[in-house]
């Protein structure tokens, strides 16, 4: 480790870290907001459901780099525009979370749903007051996977020049210099671990009703 280099670059590194965090988190939030209604619709779709979830799964097989490069053509953005990365990651996360939301809604017991119907809940309030709160444990588990994998996918965007911790890897490679690479790895892991911890914390806050052993 070359600490002189670290000290000199601290400003840039801090900047990269902030970008990296934003690029990882914004897509998760955006995808969650979309996944809730879409997941609910897919759950209602009956026979179509396996097909719809299959299509969502296919999205995941598109290589991320290809998506980063293709999106500017679709969106009309500049190749360096961080928006490309945000949109690409939102799509990935959405693919993951739609299934998660579906699974979460499945976990709500039939007895509880029947009771809610019999009490006279309308669809909308049944979703927000009964189904969604009970789906939180499953959705929370899906979100953990999403944030952690986003942290690693974001670093790939360094190849198309978006500023984030991945830039330290490319820099280290070009200069044959280990310090930026190690710094990048350490900060990526730290970011992933703290985001994961944040999701765990929030999930716990929303599921105080669950038995804790």
């Amino acid at each position, binding site marked *: 480790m070359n600490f002189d280099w670290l000290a000199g670059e601290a400003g840039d590194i801090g900047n990269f870290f902030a970008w990296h965090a934003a690029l990882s988190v914004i897509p998760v939030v955006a995808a969650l907001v979309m996944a809730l209604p879409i997941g609910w619709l897919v759950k209602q779709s009956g026979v179509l459901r396996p097909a719809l979830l299959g299509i969502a799964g296919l999205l995941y097989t598109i290589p991320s780099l290809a998506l980063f490069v293709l999106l500017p053509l679709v969106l009309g953005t500049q190749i360096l525009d961080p928006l490309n990365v945000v949109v690409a990651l939102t799509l990935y996360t959405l693919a993951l979370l739609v299934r998660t939301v579906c699974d979460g809604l499945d976990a709500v017991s039939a*007895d*509880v749903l*029947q*009771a*809610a*119907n*019999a*009490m*006279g*809940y*309308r669809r909308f309030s049944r979703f927000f007051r*009964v189904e969604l*709160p*009970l789906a939180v444990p499953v959705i929370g588990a899906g979100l953990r996977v999403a944030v952690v994998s986003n942290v690693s996918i974001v670093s790939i965007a360094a190849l198309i020049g978006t500023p984030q911790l991945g830039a330290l890897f490319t820099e280290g490679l070009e200069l044959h210099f280990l310090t930026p690479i190690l710094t990048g790895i350490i900060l990526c892991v730290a970011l992933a671990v703290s985001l994961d911890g944040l999701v765990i914390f929030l999930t716990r806050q929303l*599921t105080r*009703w669950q*038995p804790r052993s």
Partner: protein
Amino acid sequence: MITFKNVTKRYDNSTIAVDNLSLEAPKGKITIFVGPSGCGKTTSLRMINRLITPSSGTIMLDGQPTEAIDLARLRRKIGYVIQHAGLFPHLTVVQNIATTARLIGIAKKQALGIASELIERVGLDRTFANRYPWQLSGGQQQRVGVARALASDPEFMLMDEPFSAVDPVVRHQLQEEFLRLQRDIGKTIIMVTHDIDEALKLGDQVAVLRTGGILAQIASPQELLSKPADAFVADFVGRDRGYRYLGFVDATSSLAVAAEPAAPLGTEPSTARALTRDRWILVTNAAAQPMGWVDLDQQTGPIRESDLNLSGTLASQSGNLRQVLDAALSAPSGRGVIVGTSGALLGSVRLAEIVTAIESAKAVGMGARS
């Protein structure tokens, strides 16, 4: 009043679950649907709040056809209690109960107030208010389920085997509490059970359904016992129907209560023998409440608590012939002990007199308690 008019339910695979059902559940009374498994009880119940849509026929609430009422509004008028309570796992007891009140538009604070009052009303301690459903026993969950159905003060209540998932002791307790509650609130209730004892105990009116969803008979419990419509009903009501019938015959009018000598604890056998000509003497406590019998032929020293024979049951002054008969049959002396409302000894009735009372009740065919 809930009215079924020629209601039929045919499921897609063409099984007829309910066949041309017509009946009335009168206002403020408990109507019980009873019958063997698969005879269409649950289907009939769920057609009332339209969790299931009838294939044909009409169900009316106070004369208004249910299909004319907005679905959510209809359901909010009807309390619904199911076997495993179906409580919301993510809400505390008090929040669970408040949900139905919230649904009919009562403000949150007020709804929670109603809910905490209901907790005690259904026989739970207030300390349960902030527990989650998984922290309750089955019987406690069932009580919360009843409280939740009551929080919106609905006119109608539907209950599907509400007491069947708990052990017999708790079931008995819940049934007693339920009857006490109903005496205060007077809801129009339809309850489903497959337990004929429960039906006869709780029902003002009992509808017996047979397989295929056909109404076999609808009548008061005593009529069902004394005049079953056919062999199916007679068989379903069971072997003990003759004895059970006595549960509906008032005892006070037909029996003369004789004085029964009693001795307090600590009495010497010689003193006790002077009180009675019989070999058995009743022992009472300071409040004159019967404690048990003592066999004076066996007794040597002063009467102690451990000398008591506790086999005898007690019949209350306002009780029925079944209780009095059981009191006489279970007492070693053969005399049924009668107590007043405070539990104090009033006297006793001999078995022979009870049999005479039964005979005259049968002969007159009256004395039925409604």
